[in-house]
């Protein structure tokens, strides 16, 4: 008789230990075949176990997935990724100075959002996670707008109702970011179903972290997408960590996240998430498939969360500090930069100049954003506006509560004035 025993997943290394990514099999760039966009999910199951990679270790684009983008487009991509990183760094600093309450960086995974937003059409609807700020940057949302949201100031698109980074952009076809994990995944499928019902050629795309893929909403998304062959791209951003839990706690020890797709009858493609060209190519492939009535695709982006989970987190408590340096897929920005330099379309000088330009741009945006108010300094939103938008039309009980708050604020104001007059 043998007794059963609970298996508890262990990350390869904890603080003080040597980083170890040997669990990750990395095939050489160019090896994965690029199947027809309408190939059946079963036919292409191997795309879920390997890894689509285009940029090789010398920074050259190789193999059938090379999207053959124009150098100008790659330069734009580099700019978007760098801007995302500079923006993240600035906002993190501003949080540390107490100017905003919270922040989450996307450092190390900028290629995912930037490449995908560039590979999709402007009319396609995006259902983002909190770590895909690059989507907004590619689509042209001004940094000032994003900063104003983080500041909860008078120009905040959420009118002070949301924590920092919970952006949305209706005109830009980007849905609202939710604090509740994974909810957007099946919603994107519903949006895509509506596009199909209405007979449009627009598609939807959504992102979740590998950790959040454990939520039931992941299953809802894949089931509905498969049943209705919805024109949707479902992305799992596998950055190895979900706060302190490594990807094994989301089931990554047994199967790749991409491999879940075929179980539902959906192609699953695993891609080097730090390879701009590969992410772009795979997204194009999935988008073509969706538009050609080929249905949904599940994409797993293999990447690494280089920064802390959020400004409330201290990763040195649960993972080796050196992991990011040891990450075998490198830095997406460096890789694209080296590729462009190899093409003769970029140089260290131009890169340095771009960095400087973007840094100045971020500074100018921040200076403008704070003129619309900060957490501590005016101008401020009117607190009684909090009662608006709960419903389309304000019911009686909310009107009454609004009056009560108005009275209260007036009293507070009068008391403060009286105190100031005395003092």
């Amino acid at each position: 008789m043998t007794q059963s025993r609970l298996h508890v997943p262990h990350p390869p290394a904890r603080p003080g230990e040597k980083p170890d990514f040997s669990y990750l099999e990395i095939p050489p760039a160019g090896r994965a075949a690029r199947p027809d966009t309408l190939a059946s999910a079963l036919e292409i199951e191997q795309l879920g176990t390997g890894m689509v990679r285009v940029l090789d270790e010398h920074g050259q684009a190789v193999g059938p997935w090379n999207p053959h983008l124009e150098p100008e487009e790659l330069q734009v991509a580099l700019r978007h990724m760098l801007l995302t990183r500079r923006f993240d760094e600035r906002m993190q600093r501003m949080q540390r100075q107490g100017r905003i309450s919270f922040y989450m960086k996307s450092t190390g995974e900028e290629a995912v959002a930037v490449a995908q937003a560039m590979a999709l059409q402007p009319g396609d609807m995006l259902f983002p996670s909190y770590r895909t700020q690059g989507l907004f940057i590619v689509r042209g949302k001004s940094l000032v707008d994003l900063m104003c949201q983080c500041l909860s100031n008078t120009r905040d698109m959420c009118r002070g109702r949301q924590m920092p980074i919970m952006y949305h952009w209706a005109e830009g076809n980007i849905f609202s970011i939710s604090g509740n994990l994974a909810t957007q995944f099946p919603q994107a499928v519903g949006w895509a179903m509506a596009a199909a019902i209405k007979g449009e050629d627009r598609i939807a795309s959504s992102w979740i972290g590998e950790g959040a893929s454990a939520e039931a909403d992941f299953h809802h998304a894949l089931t509905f997408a498969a049943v209705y062959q919805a024109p949707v791209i479902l992305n799992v951003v596998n950055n190895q960590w979900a706060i302190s839990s490594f990807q094994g706690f989301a089931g990554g020890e047994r199967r790749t996240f991409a491999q879940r797709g075929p179980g539902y009858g959906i192609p699953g493609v695993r891609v080097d998430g730090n390879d701009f060209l590969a992410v772009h190519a795979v997204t194009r492939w999935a988008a073509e498939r969706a538009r050609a009535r080929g249905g949904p695709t599940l994409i797993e982006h293999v990447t690494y969360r280089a920064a802390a989970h959020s400004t409330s987190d201290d990763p040195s408590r649960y993972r080796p500090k050196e992991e990011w340096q040891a990450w075998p897929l490198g830095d997406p920005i460096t890789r694209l930069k080296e590729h462009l330099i190899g093409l003769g379309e970029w140089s260290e000088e131009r890169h340095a100049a771009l960095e400087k330009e973007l840094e100045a741009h971020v500074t100018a945006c921040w200076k403008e954003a704070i003129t619309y108010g900060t957490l501590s300094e005016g101008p401020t939103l009117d607190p009684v506006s909090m009662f608006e938008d709960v419903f389309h039309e304000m019911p009686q009980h909310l009107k009454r509560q609004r009056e009560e708050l108005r009275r209260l604020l007036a009293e507070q104001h009068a008391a403060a004035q009286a105190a100031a007059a005395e003092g």
Partner: protein
Amino acid sequence: MAQMNMVQAINSALDVMLGRDPRVVVFGEDVGYFGGVFRCTDGLQRKYGEHRVLDTPIAEGGIVAAAIGMGVNGLRPVAEIQFADYIYPAFDQIVSELARLRYRTAGDFCAPVTIRTPCGGGIRGGQTHSQSPEGVFTHVCGLKVVMPSNPYDAKGLLISSIENEDPVVFFEPKRIYNGPFDGDPHKPAVPWSTHPKGEVPEGHYAIPIGKAEIVRPGKDATLLTYGTMVHVAEAAVRLVGVDAEIIDVRTMVPLDVDTLCTSVCKTGRCVIVHEATRFSGFGAELSATVQEECFWHLEAPIQRVTGWDTPYPHAFEWDYFPGPARIAAALRGVMEAR
């Protein structure tokens, strides 16, 4: 006795129970190796091993469902939901399953699960890190619902919850994890070491579920409240200068009607305070109970001071939070009524 903040008191309760009862298992997102995002389970995995203190996948429905299965198979699971705002994916498992298992099987099956979850605002968490959904669960038959207001109670009540044969939803007001909070965010933070209830025995003790506590005896009016708002109510009473009796409800289900209503019958005036939204909030149940039990003793209409009926807005946290000024106004209101 030791000095503990609420996080340490909760940790100590779990430690005591893991040590005493091999059936106790503790799990949740980031609970194991890391020790929880609020550090409530710090050090427990190291002490009791990975089979008793577990990290879980990010799936609240899965966490509660697994807790039910473990409970049915003889364990005493203590599951953490990282924020009360993230409890909803588990709603079906809690409402349709956990709460009713004993009833629908005529007592043949039950799952003595404790669900711990941080609740409440005041930490700039916006609408997804600030909610107080206790009223949602008090409306479900078969669940006990508890919310402590200090370290001493937190430990004693958590131990009782784990030892209880029924499922318990145990809400932890995160604003007061590190110290009592009187509702003024501009004052420097006060640690629990300044408060008598920051003295906590290291060993086992239990505070019975279903017993309210008179926090401040008084004869002019009764303030019924729980969680963070106990401390805010105390500040409001100091502000108004009336001799009000403050009662910490502590357990919402089952409710200590005797203690509450004896007080209101004595004072004839009642103010109910909670941070959760007003409409169909737990205050409505308290108000109805007081009306039914104390009608002939009431000198003034019962007043409720609560969060507004909107989601918790990030920028207007302190306009939303029912602070001492609003409680004081209600208190004056019931005192003036004749």
